[in-house]
């Protein structure tokens, strides 16, 4: 019953997010602030992880291809496929569930604990629209982050491949360009938009409806990370089944 109640409350929150909009001049400021916090604030960690994980993917692929009949350019091909299809949209989203998700839950949760949300409600402001909608809009720029993750993942793979001596630059580029299917990009960005929606709304739900004090803010952040990750993995499976099979 609690799960059903939570799911119902979550969808009511989504509905409320689009009702009684906050004045545009105020909302604009909030959106820019959230773009700065959630998108630009995540670029550093995303770039770092993408570059090195791309490198690791390449090294592991290269080390596992020891048959002389398999062409060396397949290292580049495998790196591209891994990074574009799974690593950038899904793996980075799980990391973002920890980074952005816990930031959203703890900031909204702290506002709940310190009665700042009550203050908004007393003033007659739709607190859900005021707090969640800017995060939702900001997260619609998430595909921009994922594009950078894709680029840096492949770049990291290329660097690891060449400097590790696994193949030549020409072979790697040939592999990256081999049998390129543009629908894979569409698939990756559809997933990214869905994950962006989850990353903005699930942590907001756990922050907004939390009860208790400082300890509960920490617990809510952890729960929000767990459920955001679970939903990302589940929807990743469903979308892959729907779009690729």
């Amino acid at each position, binding site marked *: 019953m609690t799960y059903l109640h939570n799911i119902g409350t979550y969808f009511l929150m989504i509905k409320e997010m689009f009702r009684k909009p906050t004045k545009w001049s105020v909302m604009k400021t909030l959106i820019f602030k959230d773009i700065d916090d959630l998108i630009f604030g995540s670029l550093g960690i995303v770039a770092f992880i993408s570059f090195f994980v791309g490198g690791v993917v390449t090294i592991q692929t290269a080390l596992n291809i020891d048959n002389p009949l398999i062409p060396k350019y397949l290292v580049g091909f495998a790196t591209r496929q891994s990074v574009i299809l799974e690593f950038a949209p899904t793996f980075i989203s799980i990391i973002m569930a920890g980074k952005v998700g816990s930031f959203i839950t703890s900031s909204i949760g702290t506002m709940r604990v310190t009665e700042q949300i*009550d203050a908004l409600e*007393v003033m*007659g402001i739709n607190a859900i629209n005021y707090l969640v909608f800017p995060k939702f809009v900001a997260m619609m720029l998430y595909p921009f982050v994922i594009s950078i993750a894709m680029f840096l993942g492949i770049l990291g793979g290329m660097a690891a491949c060449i400097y590790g001596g696994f193949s030549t630059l020409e072979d790697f580029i040939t592999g990256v360009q081999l049998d390129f299917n543009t629908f894979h990009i569409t698939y990756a960005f559809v997933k990214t938009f869905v994950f962006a929606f989850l990353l903005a709304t699930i942590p907001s739900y756990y922050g907004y409806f939390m009860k208790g004090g400082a300890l509960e803010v920490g617990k809510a952040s952890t729960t929000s990370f767990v459920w955001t990750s679970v939903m990302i993995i589940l929807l990743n499976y469903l979308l892959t089944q729907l779009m690729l099979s």
Partner: protein
Amino acid sequence: MIEVKDLHKSFGDAHILKGISTVFEKGKTSLVIGQSGSGKTVFLKCLLGLFHPEKGTISYDGKIYSNFSDDEKRNLRAEMGMVFQGSALFDSMTIAENVMFPLRMFTKQSKSEMQDRVNFVLNRVNLSDAHNKMPSEASGGMQKRVAIARAIVNNPKYLFCDEPNSGLDPKTAIVIDNLIQEITDEYNITTIINSHDMNSVMEIGEKIVFLKDGHKAWEGSNKTIFKTDNEAVTGFVYSSELFKKVRQMYLEERQ
């Protein structure tokens, strides 16, 4: 004027408010007092529309709140000011931005008009040099004064304060009490304060409603509270030796 009739509120099996009826008049500072757990905060949150009572009515200037449309409720809320127990200042904004917030949300004033109004109310609460400070850089007393400034910046008809003196030293508490009373007189606001600070009760309680276990146990003013023999009130108000002596002296003086 706010009129409350037979207000009931429960949370699950816990019946918190059990049929409270009273009237809070315009231009008067009214205090709701009672022990912790007596239902003061729930009562105040019902008046603010944050909790929905199961039974009873709350009327604002003769109009029953539960009959209001969503727009009317929103308009009414724009006429309310609230000072929270913990001040509830937005910690991502400076003090001036906190005070300006209701103006940005509900008025079409230009930035310079808003700035003038913010300067005026911050001067009114003696915080003319704190504009650019963050709430975390302000003391408890300053935060309360900022909360009062934010509550009055939009010229509210109703001002609600939840234990505005909690956590303050006696001197600062008196400053806050006097400020609230002056503002109430000056702008002819209906002010309701939740408190268990007996100094506030004696200083500014033009009307006092005493709650006990969710019931209204007594109603009067700071002038009549000395005379009452109501056991619930005397047990609460005169629990300290100091107030017992004050009451004794008052009664002896009258004889």
